[in-house]
């Protein structure tokens, strides 16, 4: 059964069971492999995307739930906040292996949209659902602060 999806500003027809996790559709049907599979059960945050501007774990989001919605993945993240975060991520060399980082960035974008100048507690609370096996947490925190200062 075909579902119409709107991902990163483009329409796609996807022939998949409506119960398929959005993560599978993004990676296997659309080839958007920036979004990662870490756990499949909403425990790690690696699969975070935005749906109508709000963060969602795509591993626990069925395809049927995003029909007609605007999905943004790391490949389509843009705007002042995303760009400031990308610059800070590169400047501070945040990633280690990189596996978790697409999810970290999508959560960080959502956090800075809601709280433009977060303190450490805001960052802890907003980023708690994104695990990093390489423990880049202190660099992530520093990069979010740096990006927040950079966004005018």
């Amino acid at each position, binding site marked *: 059964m075909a579902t119409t999806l709107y991902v990163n500003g483009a329409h796609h027809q996807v022939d998949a069971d409506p119960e398929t996790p959005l993560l599978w559709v993004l990676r296997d049907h659309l080839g958007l492999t920036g979004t990662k599979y870490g756990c499949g059960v909403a425990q790690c945050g690696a699969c975070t995307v935005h749906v109508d501007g*709000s963060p969602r774990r795509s591993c626990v989001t069925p395809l049927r739930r995003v029909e007609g919605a605007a999905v943004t993945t790391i490949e389509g993240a843009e705007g002042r906040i995303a760009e400031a975060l990308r610059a800070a991520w590169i400047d501070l060399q945040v990633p280690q292996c990189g596996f978790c980082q697409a999810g970290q960035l999508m959560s960080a974008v959502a956090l800075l949209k809601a709280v433009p100048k977060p303190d450490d507690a805001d960052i802890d609370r907003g*980023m708690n659902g994104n695990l990093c096996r390489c423990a880049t947490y202190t660099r992530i925190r520093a990069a979010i602060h740096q990006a927040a200062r950079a966004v005018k």
Partner: protein
Amino acid sequence: MSVALLIVAVTLAAPSPPEPPPPEELNDPGHFADLADEETRAKALFGEVAKVLLHPRCANCHPATPRPLQLDARRPHIPWVVRGKDGEGAPGLTCDTCHGETNYLQQPGAPHWHLAPAEMAWVGKTPGEVCRQLKDPARNGGRTLEAVHQHLAEDPLVAYGWRAPAHLQPAPGSQERLAALFRAWIEAGAHCPQ
């Protein structure tokens, strides 16, 4: 080992969730009809209502701290999430990041998934304490008892208590029976147990 093999190995090793205990019984209001004294009857009826309110499907999201509980074991929610403003979680990690409007796979979901405010915390309280709290507009969201009844009888988030994913024990009885017990309690004078 390749990443794919590692994922398969981890998936195979992951224990399947344990079967939940069978649903608990919930007596209907008729069960208490023999209690001629209204106050005695009201207290007994509320004790039955409290079986639902203090069940993990309900109390887990009426936590005593900013962090909800989860599962039948009432363990602190993982990941560490907090009530935040309006009970909808912290910016960047709102409840709807993971909980949709319906269950999906093992992920619980219901419309407007959120936490009760701190003044409506039930965890660690006795049925009598919860009863007095429910009657106090300062601690029940400014509701009349009729409005509390309506919340219990009709709110889709309350209905989730009996529609949890299969690995979770449903709340005792049914939403209809809960509403009938609460109605009978109001009619018997809404007295609270000790």
